[in-house]
């Protein structure tokens, strides 16, 4: 009797879990292993091109300082964008979760998610129109201000940061919002009744309790920004060369897929190392 039950349970577990695992295999595991395989080849094995196994693609990373410089530049960009997104997004989430109630909250929430519904490439081209000299921003400011200003942010690092922050801000707002909403208002009232001022409440009650959400949002932003290539290319111009754009070049312009794949895996490894190093600190923060 019990073995039958166990078997039935196992069947249930397998049938319930299999869609998720099949999806993981097809969408993540297979493409990643194909790329891992490519990264150890000397040439793309299409047609009857000759190729052999090699680790040269990984050695290439260390042979010039170019790749390391760009990787460091990309990591700095990731940190900048994450910090700005958190500084802007957390207060937004707090206001949404605690200060605003009812219909207006729904409306504001919609505004936060709205950019997600448009194509990211379209969003970046819109920023290009806004930021360029004699663009929407400059014309708008000059129409309002009594003095002339000259705003030409296009093709600069600030332009890249603005575009990326706008693209990824909703992540940190959403994750922080969920964490903040779960905080019982009574806790805040209790702290206040015991004489804590607003800053102390934020620092000792709200921030620790919402930290898991905040950190999840930060990781969700940092990882894709380090590998971003489209935003830097369009908004950055001359200064828009990053590790991600070099990987893109290998695939699109030079047709050196093996090197592109190797660089991608180096990026993946570096990001994992960063997250692993940070994880003790993150875990301590959560408890």
């Amino acid at each position, binding site marked *: 009797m019990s073995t039958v039950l166990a078997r039935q349970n196992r069947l249930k577990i397998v049938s319930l879990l299999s869609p998720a695992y099949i999806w993981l295999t097809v969408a993540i595991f297979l493409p990643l292993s194909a790329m891992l395989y490519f990264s150890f080849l000397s040439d793309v094995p*299409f*047609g*009857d*091109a000759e190729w052999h196994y090699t680790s040269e693609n990984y050695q290439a990373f260390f042979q*010039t300082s*170019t*790749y390391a*410089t*760009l990787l460091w*530049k990309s990591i700095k960009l990731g940190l900048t964008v994450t910090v700005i997104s958190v500084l802007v997004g957390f207060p937004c989430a707090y206001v949404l979760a605690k200060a605003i109630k009812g219909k207006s909250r729904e409306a504001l929430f919609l505004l936060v998610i709205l950019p997600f519904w448009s194509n990211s490439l379209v969003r970046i081209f819109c920023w290009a129109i806004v930021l*360029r*000299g*004699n663009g929407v921003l400059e014309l708008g400011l000059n129409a309002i201000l009594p003095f002339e200003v000259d705003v030409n942010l*296009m*093709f600069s690092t600030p332009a890249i940061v603005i575009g990326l922050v706008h693209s990824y801000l909703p992540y940190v707002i959403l994750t922080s919002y969920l964490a903040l909403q779960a905080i019982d208002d009574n806790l805040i009232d209790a702290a206040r009744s015991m004489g804590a001022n607003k800053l102390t409440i934020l620092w000792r009650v709200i921030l620790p309790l919402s930290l898991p959400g905040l950190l999840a949002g930060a990781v969700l932003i940092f990882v894709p920004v380090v590998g971003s290539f489209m935003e830097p290319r369009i908004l*950055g*111009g*001359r*200064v*828009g*060369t990053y590790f991600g754009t*070099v990987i893109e*070049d290998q695939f699109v*312009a*030079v*047709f050196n897929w093996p090197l592109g794949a190797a660089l991608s895996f180096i990026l993946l490894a570096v990001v994992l190392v960063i997250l692993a190093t940070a994880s003790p600190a993150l875990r301590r923060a959560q408890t």
Partner: protein
Amino acid sequence: MNKRILLATTVALTTTGAAVLADEIRVLNWQGYGTDEDWAISAFTEATGHTVVHEYFNSEQEMLTKLRTNPGAYDVVLINAAFTPQAQAEGLIGPVDSSMVANFSDVPENLAANPDLNAGGALHGMPWTWGLTSFAVNTNEFNEMPTSIEVFWDTAHEGKVSIRDDALEAVQFAAIATGQDINDILDLDAIEAKLAELMPQIKTYWGSENDWNQFMAAGDLDVATFWSGSASRSMASGLPVQFIVPDEGAIGWLDGLSIPTSSTKKEAAHAFINWMIDPEFYVKWAESGAPASANAKAAAALPDDAFNKRVLGDPAVVARVQFQRPVSDENRERYLELWQGLKAAQ
């Protein structure tokens, strides 16, 4: 009466003759690059009875792969002269019999004798079209058109300059600026130094013709490298730009039509190539924007105000052009490394 019968028989004979000889030839080319113009193909079919089917490639590597993997599938293939020697060395293409191409006599000697198209000691690619990579300026920003490539390094245009994001093109551009042979670069350090000096001048890199037009229209650029065919289209669409071939020279490319060794319809293939370098075809094609023709008669038949005649038809300009030769994989990698290093330092 007799005469009429004779005429009728001749007509009948020629029609059946054409029908018997009619072949279907398969052409491998970039999409939308002349040979697949509907009006030209239907006129060709009407005149010769041969029908034409097209297949396309998106890069030179893909074209070579297709030739290697599908022997017998193609009868005419477009190959850039820088790749003709490789295709010839691999035995993919055979010689073109110039006696079967009547219009060959109108191809000027400098193109007909191009060393790459004559790889292996015989004509392996019929010179078809050519063009330049040089630069264009925004005419609103210049009272007097520049005549030197040094305008890129002129600090008056700092932050208003652009070149294409392409290692080979950037290196060859700097080779011209440093007075070197683009096909035999001896002083790569000088090129690196020259490009490093250019970097602060650059606003952004451009990637496509469309990018270029947008940056120019927005007034972001004063001067940028450009392709002659694209420049003629931009000027025709009303952008205030002027294509310049500086005193230092310009990069030239040459496309040829070749016949794969494995083709079984060589006669029809030669007829098609002859059709494609005919002045009548070219003049009509040029109306919608075409590169320069390798046929001197075709080039001369253009209206006098046509871009390809006005700019590229000038013998003094042609004399300054350095045509691209094949680039070894080793050099390609060196150029890429140099270009990536410069970009990363920004």
